């Protein structure tokens, strides 16, 4: 783990010496996020989002635990206890708005984190395991967020739960029994609300566990970097502390400014008004939409409007929606270009900025819009592109692309020259 030039932890006083002998926790921190962890010196602000994601996970757990002290997971009173938190619990409104907007910010930073990984091909060897664990975290986040949105027991909570669990009903033969089993009944009610609350409390701690694995796996090869050229020598790196603690500190300040602007001045801007109406199984909302962070995947689900051969449209939509995230699991083996960074891949870069990003934007807009034309048609084209991009374009581009010349090392990219490169110590193309 880590590079040979990593500084070793040296306890200075009796207490740290005692701890280092019995339980080397300070050593662990020193080697993980301290001066003992060398990091590429050229990381841009796009490398801030991992730390920010960890921060928002903590925000969610802290606010969530406090909310759980005042909330009751019972279909009779869930909506009322949510309002009780908003009105009668001291600073309850702040806890709830921080939790609701904290979920949104968690997803914002995770999406930026994922797109950074896609542009710089952070999923490529030797970092496949980090990427795979990241996809697992993302799936767990989606499940947690979905179940959390059900808890206030508003109209969108109820109908969202009904639609999403209904997806399992699309599975042939066993679908209906599975749906009933998941809900503990034929429609979302007390049984569903209770188990969603239980799992919503549990899963964040599972996420925290996978985050530890994610960071562990990261510390074996070390961070990727904007050139995609691996670290070669000590001059390519800087110790995490104080350089990246300072940089992450500034990034955290910006994120908190945006976060609290939303919490205090626009707390309901990302929510749906219908969720301030208590759940009513007899009244269907005009447009059932999930929270904004699910819109691209909801658009893929709804893009399949026609049966195809033996497949009903609904089943196709469900397969495509889950498939759209599951393809990320095989990404390291699809994109075999030896160059990591999009900066040196002219063809990949074009498909990324003019293909994938516009397709995601279209899917996002269509997922939040009612299921009407032209949104459905737009989402169908974008869905087709989405799958072509990951499953067809990436493998082919990786084969045919002629990449631009890479710098010899990170040092050369940052400082303009690297003594070792000048001496001709190693002139093979650096990867």
């Amino acid at each position: 783990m880590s590079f040979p030039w990593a500084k070793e932890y040296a306890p200075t006083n009796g207490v740290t010496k005692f701890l280092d002998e019995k339980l080397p926790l300070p050593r662990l921190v020193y080697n993980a996020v301290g001066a003992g962890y060398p990091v590429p010196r050229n990381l841009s602000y796009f490398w801030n989002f991992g730390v920010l994601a960890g921060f928002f996970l903590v925000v969610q757990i802290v606010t969530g635990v406090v909310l759980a002290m005042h909330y009751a997971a019972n279909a009779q009173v869930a909506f009322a206890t949510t309002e009780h938190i908003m009105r009668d619990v001291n600073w309850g409104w702040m806890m709830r708005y921080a939790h609701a907007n904290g979920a949104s910010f968690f997803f914002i930073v995770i999406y930026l984190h994922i797109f950074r990984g896609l542009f710089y091909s952070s999923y490529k060897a030797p970092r496949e395991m980090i990427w795979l664990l990241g996809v697992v975290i993302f799936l767990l986040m989606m499940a947690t967020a979905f179940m959390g949105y059900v808890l206030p027991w508003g109209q969108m909570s109820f109908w969202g739960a009904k639609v999403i669990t209904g997806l399992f009903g699309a599975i042939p033969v066993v679908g209906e029994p599975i749906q009933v089993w998941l809900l503990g009944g034929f429609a979302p009610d007390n049984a569903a609300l209770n188990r969603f609350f239980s799992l919503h409390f549990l899963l964040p701690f599972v996420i925290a566990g996978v985050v530890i694995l994610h960071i562990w796996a990261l510390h074996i090869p070390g961070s990727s970097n904007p050139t995609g050229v691996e670290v070669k020598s000590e001059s390519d790196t800087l110790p995490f502390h104080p350089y990246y603690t300072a940089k992450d500190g500034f990034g955290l300040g910006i994120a908190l400014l945006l976060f609290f602007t939303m919490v205090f001045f626009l707390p309901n801007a990302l929510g749906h008004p219908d969720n301030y109406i208590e759940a009513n199984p007899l009244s269907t909302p005009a447009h059932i939409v999930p929270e904004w962070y699910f819109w691209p995947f909801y658009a893929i689900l709804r893009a399949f409007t026609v049966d195809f051969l033996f497949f009903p449209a609904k089943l196709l939509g469900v397969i495509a929606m889950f498939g759209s995230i599951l393809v990320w699991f095989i990404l390291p083996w699809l994109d075999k270009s030896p160059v990591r960074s999009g900066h040196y891949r002219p063809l990949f870069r074009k498909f990324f900025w003019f293909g994938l990003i516009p397709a995601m934007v279209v899917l996002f807009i269509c997922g939040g819009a009612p299921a009407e034309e032209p949104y459905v048609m737009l989402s169908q084209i974008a869905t087709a592109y989405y799958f072509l991009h990951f499953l067809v374009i990436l493998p082919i581009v990786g084969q045919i692309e002629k990449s631009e010349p890479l710098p010899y090392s990170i040092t050369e990219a940052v400082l303009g020259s690297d003594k070792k490169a000048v001496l001709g110590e190693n002139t093979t193309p650096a990867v």
Partner: protein
Amino acid sequence: MTKLLSIRLVAILVGLGFALIALYSFVLGAYAWMTEEPAGHLPYEEPRDIAFSFDGPFGKWDIQQLQRGFKVYDEVCAACHSLKFVAFRDLEQLGYDEGQVKAFAASKQVPGIDPNTGEATTRPGLPTDYFPDPYPNNVAAAAANNNAIPPDLSLMTKARGDGVNYVASLLSGYSEPTAELLAEHPEAAPGPGLYHNPYFPNLNLAMAPPLTTTGQVTYDDGTEATVEQMSTDVAAFLAWTAEPTMVQRKQTGWPVLIFLLFATVLAYLSKQQIWAAAKPKKD
């Protein structure tokens, strides 16, 4: 190598499959879109933009307005609409003193139990009681209102898009459907027991116009109670019932943001200072 190649070959085939099926849906959808008449929406109006004292990041309640709106709710809306998340004690936030709140609570009958017989009965309200429901249950509410249950108003302004403006616009927006509208959308004509309102999404509302004449409510502060004024005031009151902590929220926000701005500038400066040591030296 051949194994990896085969993973990619399978991926390409699967990707083409998904894309083709999505495009198949697209082609059939596009054909239907071009050949079929689109289902038109009824042309309802967006709420008017009304200036409220609590708008914007510095907004504050206008206590006089909230008291006027409360009176409109109490004398007009409360006949049919509950306000179940608001307690009488909350009225102290509207500038009423303890005695006034007690007196108001006592003027309302809330469900209770006869201490001698245990029978269900009613008793005068206490400040800790919540606003009583005008109907004993939903069935009674539906029976009394042509099968349309009057919704609880506690959260109304948060439960509609642009809620405060919507409530004010709707209450003062009742009108007769225009001839052009009926010519273009004959289905927009109000059915029996329904009333035309251009701000309501399907244009036909089961609620009869509740505010109809100037002076319907007598304001204690001498403000002229026009329909417009009463609608605006009760919308403001409902903004308060929906989020009594709104002004506290905004007022808490400023010190938090100012502190964070300060801390972020400091974080930036320390980051600059620390990184100065690692910046490329020009020689």
